[in-house]
C-alpha cells in the first residue's frame, strides 16, 4: 500500500541523475547545485517513504488517523531541509572564498597526487637506466 507511484519514481530518478551529473562536474558552483538537487531528491524520497497514498496532512481532528500521511518521515525531511540549507550556504561561502583566492571556482586535481603520477612516469622512463647501473655496479 505504500509503494511509490511511477510518476514519483521517475521524478526521483530524474532528480538523482541530474544531481549525480552536476556532482561530477569541475565547476564548484555546479557541484554545489548538484548537492542542492540531491538534497531535494532525498527530502522527497523521505516524504514518499511515509506512504504517498494517504495524502492528508497529519493534523489531528480533521480526518481519521488512517487517512493521514506518516508524520515521522515528514519531521525527518523537515530537519533535512534545514540542514541542507545550512550545508548549501556554507559551501556557497567556500566557493565564493575559493573564487576570491584563486580567481576561479574549478575543482582542480590534487597537486600531491599529480606529483606522484609524474614520479611514476619518470620512474618508468628511468627504469632501464637503473637496470644498467645496477649491472655495472655488480661487475665492478
Amino acid at each position: 500500500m505504500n509503494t511509490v507511484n511511477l510518476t514519483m519514481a521517475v521524478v526521483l530518478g530524474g532528480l538523482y541523475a541530474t544531481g549525480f551529473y552536476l556532482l561530477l562536474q569541475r565547476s564548484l558552483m555546479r557541484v554545489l547545485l548538484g548537492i542542492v538537487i540531491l538534497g531535494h531528491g532525498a527530502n522527497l524520497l523521505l516524504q514518499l517513504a511515509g506512504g504517498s497514498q494517504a495524502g492528508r496532512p497529519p493534523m489531528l481532528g480533521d480526518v481519521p488517523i488512517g487517512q493521514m500521511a506518516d508524520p515521522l518521515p515528514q519531521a525527518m525531511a523537515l530537519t533535512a531541509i534545514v540542514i541542507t540549507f545550512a550545508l548549501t550556504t556554507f559551501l556557497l561561502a567556500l566557493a565564493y572564498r575559493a573564487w576570491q583566492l584563486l580567481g576561479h571556482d574549478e575543482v582542480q586535481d590534487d597537486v600531491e597526487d599529480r606529483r606522484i603520477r609524474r614520479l611514476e612516469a619518470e620512474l618508468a622512463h628511468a627504469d632501464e637506466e637503473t637496470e644498467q647501473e645496477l649491472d655495472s655496479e655488480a661487475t665492478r
Partner: protein
Amino acid sequence: MLALVVSHLLVALVLSLVSMRHSRAIYPVAALPPTAALCWALAHADSVLAGSPPVTRMNWSATLGLEFAFRLDTLALVMTLLVSGIGVLVLLYCRWYFGTPSGDAKRSASLLLAFAGVMFGLVLADDLLTLYVFWELTTICSFLLVGQSGVSRESRRASLQALLVTTLGGLVMLLGFIVLGESSGTYRISELAADPPDGAAVAVATGLILVGAFTKSAQVPFHNWLPAAMVAPTPISAYLHAASMVKAGVFLVARLTPVLSEVSYLPVVTAVFGLVTMFLGGWRALREHDLKLLLAYGTVSQLGFLMVLAGSGSYTGELALAGMLLAHGAFKATLFLVIGIVDHQTGTRDIRELSGLGRRMPWVTSVAVLAAMSMAGVPPTIGFVAKEAAFETYLGTGAVAAVEAGIVAGSVLTVAYTARLLFGCFASKRGAVPTEAHPVPAGMLLPPAVTALACLVLGVAYPLTDELAATYAERAAGSSGEYHLGLWHGFNQPLVFSAVTLFAGLTLAAHNARLNLLRSRLPRPLDAQRGYERIMGSLERLAVGVTGRVQVGSLPTYLGIILLAVLVVPGSVLLMRVTPIEQLRWWDNVLQLPLALVILVAAAGVVRATRRITAVLLVGVIGYGIGGMFIVGGGPDLALTQFLVETLTLIAFVLVLRRLPARFTETPSARRVRLPKVLVSLAGGVFVGFAALIFSSARDTPSRVSAEYLEHAEEGTSATNVVNAIIVDFRAFDTVGELSVLAVTATGVASLVLSSRSARRRKHARSDWRQLSATARPTAGEHGERGSA
C-alpha cells in the same frame, strides 16, 4: 625473574632521564642490572644442573590465556652467561669508548641496558608468545642502536635493512608459533618439549619458525643485514651483532630442537643452510679490508656453523653447540672490543693502513692472539675443545660425511681469516710506516682481557665446561652419550681434522693475496645485498605505481568510482532479488503530473545551462516544485519550510553570483568525458528510482513509532499538528542538535565572508600606507643630504 628483567628496563628508563649530565658515569651504573642477573643465574646454577630449574609465571590476561613464563634451564643458563656476562663487560668498556659526552653515548647507555634486559627475557622465556615479544624488542633495540642519531644516510639504511629483514622473519615466525601452539594446544615450551607434537601442522610451523631463526641469525640468503649493521659503534656491534642478539636464531633452534624432534627435515635444512652460510661468510671474510667487516663476515660464518650444530638434535652435536656458543661469545666479543681499541687509538681499522701495532700495543696484541687461537681452534682454548666435539658429531659415511667435509672446509676458511685478521691488524708490513697510536687505558683493555682469559679458562678447565654442556646436551637430545668435552681424546679422526684445518688454513692465508686476484675475476651472479636492494626498489616502484593509478587526484573520478561501486554492489543485488512491485500505478493525485513535468524540465535545463544565474533560478524552480509535491503529499509544514528555505537559498546564491563571472568556465577536457559522466549519472538515477519502488513496496506494516506519536500527540503535547509535536516536543533534542549545526555553519560562513572582507580592507590599508611612504621618502632623502653636506 620477571623482576630482574623489568629492573633492566626501569634502570634504562631512569638513565635515559638523568643521562643529560653524567654521560660517562652512567655506564658503570648501567652495568649493575646485568651484574645482578649474572649473579642470580650463577647462584641458581646448582639447582639448574640438578634438574630443578627456577620457574616464574605471571598470568596477565587470564581470559585470553596469555602469560609471561620464565624458566632458567641449562640452555638459558649458558645464554645468560653470554648475555649478562658480556653485557657487563661491554657496558664497562663503553665508558672508555664513548669518550666525549656525545649524544651517542647518552643514548647508547640506556639502549644497551634495555637491550640486555630484553635479551635476558628472551633467553629465559618458556612461552612461545613471551619469546616472540622479547624477540621483536631486541629487533627494535638493534634498530635504534644501529641507527644512532640517524644523521648519516649509511646508518639509516643499515638500521632499516636490519629492521625490515629481521621483522619480516619475526612475523613469519609468529605465524609458525601460532600454528605450533594451536595445533598442539599449548604455548608453553617446556610442556611442548615433554610431549613433542607431530603432524603436518607442526612440519609447516617448523618451516615458518626457521625463517625467523635464519633472518635473525643472518643465514644465507638473509645474511647481508649483519655486515651492513657494522656502521654501529664497535661496542654495540660486539654485543648485539656478535655475542648475543644474532645468536637468538641459533638459540631458538636449540630451544625448539626437543619440541620439533618429530620433524625429520629440521636437521637437513639447518645443515644445508648452515653450511652454505658458514662457507660463504668465511669466503667473504677473506676479501674484506675493514677489520670490522672481516669480523662481521666471520660472525656470519660462525653462525652458520652454530646453526648446523643446533639443528643436529644429537647428543654430541648439542654438546658441541653449548661449547661453541660459549667459545664464540668469548672470542668474538674479545676481537670486536680489541678492534674497537685499535680503531679508537689509531683512527683506522683498515688492514692496508695498519702496521706495526704488535710492537706498540703488546698487551692488546696478546689478548687478541688468545681470542684468535680460540677462533681458529688451537689447543688449549675452548674453541679447540668445542670444534673437536663438532668434528666428532659428524663422523660417519654418506650425507653425514658430507656435512663433516663442509664443516672442515668452513673451519679452514675460519683459520685463514683469523690469520688474516691477526696479521693485518698487528704485524709490521714491509714498506709500511708504523701506525701512530695513543696509549691504551687499562680500563679499556680490561673487558677484552677478561673475555680472552675466559677463552683459555673454559678450555683448560674443560671438566667444568663439560658439566654445563653435557647437562644441556642430555636434556636437548633426550639421551646421553659417551663423548665428553676435553682437550685430549687420543689420536683419532677429529684430532687429524683439527690439524689439517690449521695447516690448510694457514696455507690459504699465506696465498690469500693471489686468491683475491683470482676472485675478483670471477663473475658474481648472485649478490644478497643487490637482491635486497632490488626487492626494496621494486616494492617502492609498486607503491608508486599503485598510488599513481589509484590516487589520480581528480574529484570527478573518485565520485564516479563511488557511484559505480553503488551501481555494481547494491545494484546487482537489487536486480538479482526479484521483489514484486505491488499496486503499481501512475499517480496518486493528478496534480503530481504537471509538477513532475515542471521539475524534470527544470532539471534538464540546469544540466544544459551555461549561465550561472539560469542554473540557479532553475534549481529554485525545482525547489518550489518539490514544495508543491509536499503539499500534494500531505505535508503542509514541509512545504512551508521548503518555500522559505528555497527563497533564502536563492537570495544567498544571488548575493554570491553578483561577484562571480556570468558563465560557467568550460574546459576542453571536460567535453571528452561528458558521455561517460552522463551514462553513469543516468544509471545512478535509474537505480534510485527502482530502489524507491522496490523498497517502498517491500514495507508491509505501518510504522509503530508514528502510530504512537499520532496517538499521544494531543494529550502529551496538546498539539494537533503532529509533525510540530515531534519536532518541538517528542524529538526536541534532535532539533537542538539541528540548531547547533545551523549555529556552527553560520559561524563558518561569517568567518569566510568576513575574512575576505578584512583582507580587502588590509589591502586597501597597505596601498594607502605605500602611497604615504612613497610621498614621505623623498623628504627623508633631502634631510639626509642636508645632514651630510
